[in-house]
């Protein structure tokens, strides 16, 4: 994010992002959704777990904009509050996945042929692993605590990131400037940190932005199966699962959280695609 010159690649990328109205709309939508989830619950007269057993399930009204569930809890508050958890898991799990993936990919790409072959075979094996069993076993080992869910998700989502980074390093590591650095006596970790990492950052940002929706989907899957966020707390996966169970009688319980979840995924995907177009010189031609 150098602001020294208006010609920096980051600046150019930003300009090409802002030029597309669809991307601007998606970014605005994302900001609005994030703000709603972060500060929305503070303005609600209801708590996310406040029960009103006399009220029970009511359809949307002026007092409860998105209706209530069978325990009389205000759905709008619960959706916004659940959004916090879903987004937080999405962000943290992506961070975990990116750190593992980037580190693994950098080392595999730079550490020489034999090491690379071994490390990439390990990735191949993990690709053929049933994802969901892996996460479930991890959740079973770790327990169903919030902090451990995103570590479990991050631990399975790093594979593609590692492949992307390793591929980039392979093309970069024999370029002249790296040879020059080597000739000057630069060590392994210096080349890795100073010359490789900054150059793969573009792909890392693109891929990380596309990982967030995938991670949120995985969290929702776990919560849907009862293995993720535990009641009375709710994430969007929990709310959709509750809604799906009672959709015939109270369809608003399914519609509300589904709309929020899909809208967030849509905005994230659009922003991710736009980032790829802006930062990846290859896709500009298309």
């Amino acid at each position, binding site marked *: 994010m150098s602001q020294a010159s208006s010609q920096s690649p980051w600046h150019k990328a930003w300009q090409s992002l802002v030029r597309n109205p669809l991307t601007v709309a998606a970014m605005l939508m994302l900001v609005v959704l994030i703000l709603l989830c972060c500060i929305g619950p503070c303005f609600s007269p209801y708590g996310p777990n406040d029960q009103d057993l006399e009220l029970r399930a009511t359809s949307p009204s002026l007092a409860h904009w998105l209706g209530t569930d069978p325990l009389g809890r205000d759905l709008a508050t619960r959706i916004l509050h659940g959004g916090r958890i879903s987004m937080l898991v999405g962000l943290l799990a992506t961070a975990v996945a990116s750190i593992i993936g980037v580190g693994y990919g950098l080392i595999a790409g730079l550490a020489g042929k034999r090491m690379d072959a071994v490390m990439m*075979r*390990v990735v*191949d*094996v*993990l*690709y*053929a*692993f*049933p994802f*969901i*069993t*892996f996460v*479930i*076993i*991890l959740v*079973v*080992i770790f327990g169903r605590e919030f902090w451990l869910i995103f570590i479990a998700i991050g631990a399975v989502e790093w594979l593609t990131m590692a492949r992307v980074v390793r591929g980039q390093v392979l093309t970069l590591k024999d370029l002249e400037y790296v040879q020059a650095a080597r000739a000057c006596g630069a060590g392994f970790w210096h080349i890795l940190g100073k010359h490789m990492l900054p150059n793969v950052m573009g792909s890392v940002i693109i891929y990380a932005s596309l990982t967030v*929706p995938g991670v949120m*989907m995985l969290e*929702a*899957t776990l919560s*849907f*199966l009862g*293995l993720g966020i535990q009641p009375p707390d709710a994430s969007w*996966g929990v709310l*959709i*699962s509750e*809604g*799906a169970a009672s*959709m*015939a009688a109270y*369809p608003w319980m*399914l519609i509300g959280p*589904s709309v929020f*979840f*899909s809208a967030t*995924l*849509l905005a994230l*995907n*659009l922003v991710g695609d736009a980032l790829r177009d802006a930062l990846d010189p290859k896709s500009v031609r*298309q």
Partner: protein
Amino acid sequence: MVRFIFSRLLQGFAVILGVLCITFGLLKLAPGSPLQSERNIPEHIRVQRMAMSGLDQPLPVQLWRYIVSFATFDFPVSAKTPGRGVDEIIAQGFPVSAQVGLAALLIALALGIPMGALAALRPNSLEDRVSTVAATLGICTPSMVLGPILALVFGLKLRWFNASGWYDADDWVLPAMTLGIIYSAYIARLTRGGLRETLAQEFIRTARAKGASEAAIVFRHSFKLACLPVLNFLGPTAAGLMTGSIITETVFQLPGLGQHFVGAAVNRDYDLAMATAVFYAALIVGFNLIVDFLQALLNPRIGFKA
């Protein structure tokens, strides 16, 4: 070509062996045992039952027993459902999952390829915009949202199908639709990308200059190459679909394989968890082998290099 197939097969077996070892290690790391849910069993019975399922042996011996039993197709008996081999449990669930998964795959291809091709042939037209928007929407609709909505509309309101369960001959339709619609979005995207990239290449310009018709250009010259990204995607996807999507099988309450992936790990049914993981890995390896073979066949630049 024989060398190509042989080396791929060898790699495949190594992958399956790796999956087996990792699953074993993870299961042994997890606290608890298959007997934990049965309270108050006398000590001598517990010891007996541990011995019966081989759980009293040292870990390397247990791992070796698994490898031998899977290699010789002599499968262990599930500790949780006495008297039934894990192969029987899989053989019962797989047809359900495979039927739904195969139908979903066909729906995804039938919807996705024409949609993507139409968009690629007329860039920036109305068709392109509509198909791109539809594909993006499809990717952003989780099956846990689409499934219940389809069940609500076609099951509970219109009563065309059962909303859940596996009773009638047409109970595969709604789950297959759910998965097919979502995956068609990915396939449309890949088809559009692949076809547009191919159409921009030099040999297509040559074909145009020769005066080849538009139909010949699309079907004879570019389709084979444009299919490659889709093909790449189809390998793992087909394996994933056929072993049952857990969410879809939960929403529609299907007696497929998906439930075992969750149930086995949660119940510490070690044998079943090992069997499902190995079965899944074998399917992935098998489909990737087919994809590699087809790719080599379609793209002479890749070829059968071992």
